[in-house]
């Protein structure tokens, strides 16, 4: 990802108003740059809050249907011109670069200053340029407003391992607080987190069975997470991009207080302590309710052993949960979400049955563009768990 900070022009701008931000969101026609970004793109805002819980940063993400491409832009106004600076990249390969845009006063800038701007086809035009790597932007790109984002059906775009895999060369590590904070920029409405228990009983986020170089920097520690105490892991282990392994509470705190994330899918590994997890879930969901914040935490059950452990919880029937097993198991545990693997197809009749019972259906982990299109067009899922959320966001928001 190219370095884009310290933009002098951006520091001179004034922040966008909420009306400006919501007016800019939409589906845009690509006027220039089609060969790299396709014929249409979807634009959506997200935010993250600083650790002091007061400073909020807004980011405009532009989702392209070509090679899981996306832009992340920040901006502000300068007189009646809207200035944007940021970067673009494609997740399936190593293409990336700096990007810059403007909405000129006659291209919608003046209109966006109105109290209730009326936005229609071609009323906003982004003009700009993009470059390669750290090089200066030297290729033209332009987008013209086409229509609003698709919002007819509530749909969850869920990020695998807090937002994406380390192998996709994201700037932050999978299953880290940094990834939780980064995930909304990728178009996510929710995240999946992988939970394991340390030797001294602390639920932390980590995917693999072993401490390995895929997920962590060289530390000298070998074996499983479960063989070490939380203090040992904090002292000796750093994730690939240098972050600490977070506790489940740290990840939930970041998601609740510092992002617009509304859905957390807790994927339990076999070592999980579901009684402890249930108490954490209840505490955070009660807090969210008190804040008036839409925020679901679902205890995920992927194995028979964990199902049996879940059924021993005194209040399991009222604990929001998600079941990756059969439909019968989903009913037995009272899960509100059934989560079949995507490789079983659209399963239209099973999905309809679950819907008739008042349950939602989320499929995992789908990254193939053609199938994402097919599942959105022909399936009836309520969400997709993916490593390529910019792609799912593109196909979802550009639906008509």
């Amino acid at each position, binding site marked *: 990802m190219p370095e884009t900070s310290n933009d002098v022009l951006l520091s001179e701008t004034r922040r966008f108003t909420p009306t400006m931000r919501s007016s800019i969101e939409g589906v845009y026609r690509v006027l220039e740059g089609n060969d790299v970004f396709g014929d249409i793109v979807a634009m959506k805002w997200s935010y993250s809050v600083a650790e002091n819980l007061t400073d909020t940063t807004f980011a405009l993400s532009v989702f392209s249907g070509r*090679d*899981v491409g996306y832009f992340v832009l920040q901006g502000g106004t300068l007189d009646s011109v809207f200035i944007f600076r940021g970067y673009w990249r*494609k997740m*399936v*390969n*190593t293409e990336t670069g700096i990007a810059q845009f403007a909405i000129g006063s006659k291209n919608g800038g003046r209109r966006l200053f109105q109290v209730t701007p009326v936005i229609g086809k071609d009323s906003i035009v982004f003009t700009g340029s993009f470059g390669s790597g750290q090089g200066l932007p030297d290729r033209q790109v332009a987008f013209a407003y086409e229509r609003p984002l698709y919002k007819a059906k509530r749909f969850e775009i869920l990020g695998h391992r807090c937002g994406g895999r380390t*192998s996709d060369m994201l700037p932050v590590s999978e299953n880290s607080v940094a990834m939780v904070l980064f995930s909304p920029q990728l178009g996510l409405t929710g995240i999946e987190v992988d939970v394991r228990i340390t030797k001294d009983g602390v639920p932390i986020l980590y*995917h*693999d*069975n*072993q401490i*390995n170089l*895929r997920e962590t920097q060289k530390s000298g520690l070998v074996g499983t997470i479960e063989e070490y105490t939380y203090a040992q892991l904090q002292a000796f282990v750093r994730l690939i991009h240098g972050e600490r392994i977070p506790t489940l509470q740290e990840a939930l705190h970041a998601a609740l207080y510092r992002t617009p994330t509304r859905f957390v899918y807790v994927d339990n590994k076999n070592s999980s302590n579901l009684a402890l997890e249930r108490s954490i879930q209840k505490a955070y969901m009660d807090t969210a309710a008190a804040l008036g914040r839409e925020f679901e935490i679902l205890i995920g059950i992927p194995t028979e052993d964990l199902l049996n452990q879940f059924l021993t919880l005194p209040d399991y029937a009222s604990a929001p949960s998600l079941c990756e097993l059969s439909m019968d198991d989903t009913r037995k545990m009272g899960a509100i979400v059934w989560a*079949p*693997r*995507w*490789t*079983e*197809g*659209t*399963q239209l009749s099973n999905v309809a049955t679950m819907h008739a019972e008042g349950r939602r259906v989320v499929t995992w982990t789908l*990254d*193939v*563009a*053609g*199938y994402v*299109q*097919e*599942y959105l067009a*022909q399936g009836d899922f309520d969400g997709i768990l993916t*490593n*390529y959320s910019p792609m799912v966001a593109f196909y979802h928001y550009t639906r008509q």
Partner: protein
Amino acid sequence: MQAHQIDLRGNVLRHVAIGLLLLGITPAIVFGQGEAAGQGKPLLFHPQRLAPGARWTSAGLTSVAPPPEITEEFQVRWPAFDYHTLYGLPSGFSLDGRAAVQVLQNRISVGPKWVSTLGPVSFSLGWDIAYWFGFLKVGGFDSKAHGWEGNPNISFGYDFGNVAATFKTEVLSNYSFVSYQGDLELSSTAKFYSGIAFSFILEQPFWKDQYLTLGFRAMYTKFYWETWSLFSTFDRYLFYPEIIVGFIL
């Protein structure tokens, strides 16, 4: 069912033209006529001219280590049973056929090979066409897939007497990839030019008249058929090392 169909004709025709050019023109320039054909040694990879009707066959195993980018923590390596046969044709040509069997996924390839030799040095040009298929209907999978591949290849060999060494380079290309999830079908040629492979192979007597093939193949590719069920979406050249062991029958 609805499929995303991509027009293959342009790419395939271009590929055919390049293959014909390589097969027809280059060898004549480089090596000329070469030595007379005969039964040859029991060698499968090493370029040697076989008499029409002469045939060698080997059976063995191949094993590929998929890259951690797509397998992550699960370093599963299933060896494939490898059956390889070479059949002599007129004018320095032979027919090269191979079958890789893993039961749930299998691949068969066949292609012409043209050989020229100059003393201990030999050279071949070939073009293999392969069809593979796989199915997986357990543990949350209702998947199957099949595809066509093309591997234009060039080999250089040196015969040391008892040991024949071969260096082979292949272009890896996908002519089609069709997959099914439940009742949905998806067809794609997104990774038509998939990558390149380099092999170094030794063929030598192992026990009495029994010949042994030992090879190492390094593939740098965006797609490898044995990993179809992982549905990798990387558009990057990943490294797939392969070990080849064969006993010439």
